[in-house]
């Protein structure tokens, strides 16, 4: 299961993949996973194989599109963010920001005792 310091990443993996793909542009799976790991400072140490089912699901839902790159030494699948993916990223980011703000507000709440 994808984790970050023991926390479940399942609900956020799509957001992380869309965000990384948005930053890198068209890219193959290995480079995408490497970019995600590098950008998180190594914090998101995912079982790398589980990213491919997530990418296939995002493609099935129209958020990413993919084509074979036969120019490389090995056959590679290149992933690109679609307009549906852009919209999905914006929506997921809004939800995530609201979630983080809510958690932070609870954590910072000061209880004033009489």
């Amino acid at each position, binding site marked *: 299961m994808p984790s970050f310091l023991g926390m479940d990443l399942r609900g956020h993996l799509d957001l992380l993949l869309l965000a990384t793909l948005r930053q890198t542009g068209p890219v*193959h*799976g*290995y480079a995408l*996973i490497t970019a995600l790991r590098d950008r998180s400072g190594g914090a998101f140490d995912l*079982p*790398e*194989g*589980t990213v*491919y*089912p*997530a990418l*296939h*699901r995002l*493609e*099935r*839902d*129209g*958020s990413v599109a993919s084509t074979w790159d036969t120019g490389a030494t*090995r*056959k*590679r*699948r290149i992933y690109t963010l679609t307009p*549906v993916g852009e919209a*999905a990223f914006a929506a997921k980011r809004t939800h995530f920001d609201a979630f983080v703000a809510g958690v932070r507000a609870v954590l910072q709440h000061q209880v004033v005792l009489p």
Partner: protein
Amino acid sequence: VSVERYLDELFDRLAGTGGAGRRALAEAEDHLRSAADEDEAQGLSRVDAEQRAVVAFGPPHTVAAQLRAVHRPDAWLRPAFAGAWLAGGLGLVAIGVSGLVAEVFGRIFGPEFVAGDGPGVTYTAARCAEYLRLFPGAGGCAGAAAMDHWGEVVQYRVLAGVLGLLVLAMFGLTRRRTEFGGEAWRPPRGAVAVPLGALFAVAGAGLTGMSLMQLAYGDRDMLGANLSAGIVALAAAALCLLGYALRRRHPTGTAA
């Protein structure tokens, strides 16, 4: 475990997944060999580099189970639902257009042409009085009944057309705003246009043929109503099938 052994096990666990599994296997191979190449370039032995790549990739049964979940065989239900929604909306709009054509036919050729009764049809005195009350200028019971039936033909069909436009608007809005617009819900190219076009063609040929036979035998029973539906169905069939043929020639990425 070497990359080769890992890929063999993943292949076994992906058995029966068809093209999706073959693609996943090719991606896994590229990933594992790229990772191993990178680690080997940084000084690890090939054996250690492959071992590290395999461990980082995750257990083959986990990867295969997740891939199977994404590409499950009942995935056809979603595009079928979307296709039925689209086809239903288009069918209702075609009925609405036939209502407008029936309106035009009635204005040009008279209400009896659209919704006249067959020979031998009579009404009770009370029914006649009701028709004549509604259409006092009709000049007789048969004429008033034809006026009433013409109105019904046009009204019901146009209502169906308005409903069809609402159905299509909902379809477009839902596709734009939700995951319904994604690849999983998109019917394969031609999966709506071809069967719908064929259905329209059969209905159009039947209704138009029947109307022409009515004309030949002088039978006026609902002649214009049948003819208007037949003409619109044939036009809709032509639009569906020509649209599909043009899209095959100049694909733009949209489906159905």
